[in-house]
């Protein structure tokens, strides 16, 4: 197997509060191949977004820091780079799109200028070339009549078009890896499907790799090649999509799948996983899912399971994995 495009090894995001360190994202490791779409799923607060912000080294608060062995991308180790080197890589190699397109576009700048700014910065294009390129990118993301739309302001766009515009802004810099942080959560179902189709199309046309953060398993099932499940700051299972959907082995992954309404169409009440995830400043010594796990054993309480390769291409962090699909 060739070396993957993005190789993350032991990435942690740590918060310093007072004298204590709290690990919010704990030793995340994964590979992302060229043209691969990785779905990162998990409940709110499980550290999906923070992990990706850590990858970009754009953490939301000054008391947070990134640690880890290495994050290799395009011959660079992102953890060794200084701020200037990181800035050159952001946008050009690593693009990011966000959940809420209306607030992530500069309200006072024309759409075209926002796309062109990145193109000019990273490719050194002239004003005119950048504008032509911006129109081209807008066409690629499916904005009708890009010639005139390029001069519109964000408030003149609809929600779905703004999301397309934001994708265009990120694509203008021609990144190799696109991190999409819940790109469809703010959109209605039909627009959501269009945006997902667009992302797949871009993958096929540009060979773009993607990390898709979502808590919607439906979205992930439609688009991703592999799925990684996070719980309380840790990766608990990572494998190919079909394997993960058909035969989840971690009790938490299985629980998440069982919670999806499509899993039991006749059920009157929705299935849930009882209990709450542990507080990150008061973590148990053992498995973090232990208190909610139907499979828990005494060992789970004592020892934190490490993420190990269970079968080729499938990694798992569990002492008591499920053998076949569904909860036993």
């Amino acid at each position, binding site marked *: 197997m060739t070396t993957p495009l993005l190789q993350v090894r032991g990435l942690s995001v740590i918060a310093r509060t007072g004298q204590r360190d709290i690990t919010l994202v704990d030793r995340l490791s994964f590979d992302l191949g060229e043209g691969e779409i990785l779905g990162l799923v998990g409940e709110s607060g499980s550290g999906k977004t923070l992990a990706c912000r850590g990858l*970009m080294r*754009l953490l*939301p608060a000054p008391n947070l820091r990134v640690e880890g062995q290495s994050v290799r991308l395009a011959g660079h180790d992102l953890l060794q780079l200084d701020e200037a080197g990181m*800035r*050159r*890589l*952001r*946008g*050009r190699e690593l*693009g*990011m799109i*966000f959940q*809420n397109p209306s*607030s*992530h*576009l*500069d*309200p*006072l*700048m024309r759409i075209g200028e926002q796309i062109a*700014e*990145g193109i000019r*910065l*990273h490719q050194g294009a002239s004003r005119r070339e950048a504008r032509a390129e911006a129109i081209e990118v807008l066409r690629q993301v499916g904005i009708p009549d890009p010639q005139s739309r390029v001069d519109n302001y964000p408030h003149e766009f609809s929600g779905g078009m703004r999301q397309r515009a*934001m994708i265009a*802004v*990120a694509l203008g*810099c021609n990144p190799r890896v696109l991190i999409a942080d819940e790109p469809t959560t703010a959109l209605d179902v039909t627009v959501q499907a269009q945006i997902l189709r667009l992302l797949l199309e871009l993958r096929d046309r540009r060979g773009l790799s993607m990390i898709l953060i979502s808590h919607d398993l439906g979205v992930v099932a439609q688009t991703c090649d592999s799925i990684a499940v996070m719980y309380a700051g840790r990766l608990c299972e990572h494998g190919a999509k079909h394997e993960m959907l058909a035969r989840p082995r971690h009790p938490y992954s299985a629980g998440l799948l069982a919670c999806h309404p499509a899993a039991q169409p006749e059920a009157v009440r929705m299935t849930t996983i009882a209990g709450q995830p542990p507080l990150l400043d008061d973590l148990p010594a053992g498995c973090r899912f232990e208190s909610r796990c139907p499979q828990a054993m005494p060992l789970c309480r004592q020892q934190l399971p490490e993420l190990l390769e269970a079968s080729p291409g499938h990694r798992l962090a569990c002492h008591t994995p499920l053998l076949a699909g569904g909860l036993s």
Partner: protein
Amino acid sequence: MSATFALRVRLAWNLGNGRLTLYCGLAIVLGWCLLALCAPWVAPFDPLLQNGDLRLAEPSLAHPFGTDNFGRDVLSRVIWGARVDLQMALIGVIFPFLLGTCIGAVSGYVGVWLDNACMRLIDIVLAFPFLVLMLAIMAILGPGLGSFYIAMALVGWVSYARLIRSQILVLKQSDFALAARSLGFSHRRTLFGHLLPNALFGSVVFCMSDAVLVLLNGAAVSYLGLGVQPPTPEWGTMVAEGQSFITSAWWICTFPGLAVVTLAMGFSLLADGVAERLGDRS
């Protein structure tokens, strides 16, 4: 009847939402600008020409605003004075605006110790009464328009800095700031290219009302003998000069005083109108 007429006029001219205030203010300010520009042709007399025969002449057809104790035509002096006073209002606003905006933006964006230092500096400036500090600076620099502008910039920047800083503090947490950073933009580009334009609304409005303050300050400073020096026609100086004749020749200080009031009102109306129009947008 008159109410419906007024309503019809408002609708016909599209005067709702602060447009009326905006247009009134604009008309007054532009009127004064026009007078100032055309002063050589509009003013009936040379503002510096002294006429010994016509000292303290009452308003008449030849001299609608009367003459002062040197026999100079007050109307001509008011018109020429508009040049100096408008220039004072403009430059006296622009420098504090630029200085305050830069300091406030950088202070709010960088935060931590720099922000603390800037805020304490602002506290120090604000601890003194505005005019006292200005007079102290002007006393050091010596009288004249140049030192008025410098004193204005050194004292006036604080309000702009505080306004901009508070806006930047909110905006730097905003999503589009993160989006800009995620595209590999430097801090400088993010701050000055994306955050600052979004933070300027408030201070642009404040600019207009600040022009009133600067105008009155300029007049006050000139009145105290530190600003514009005689015989240059300037409204504040004219009021000061006419003061001793207030009982015998009221027109010498009344008309320049009225000029200050109308221009100040023009700026105020403009500020209100702009504020309402911008509020309308966002």
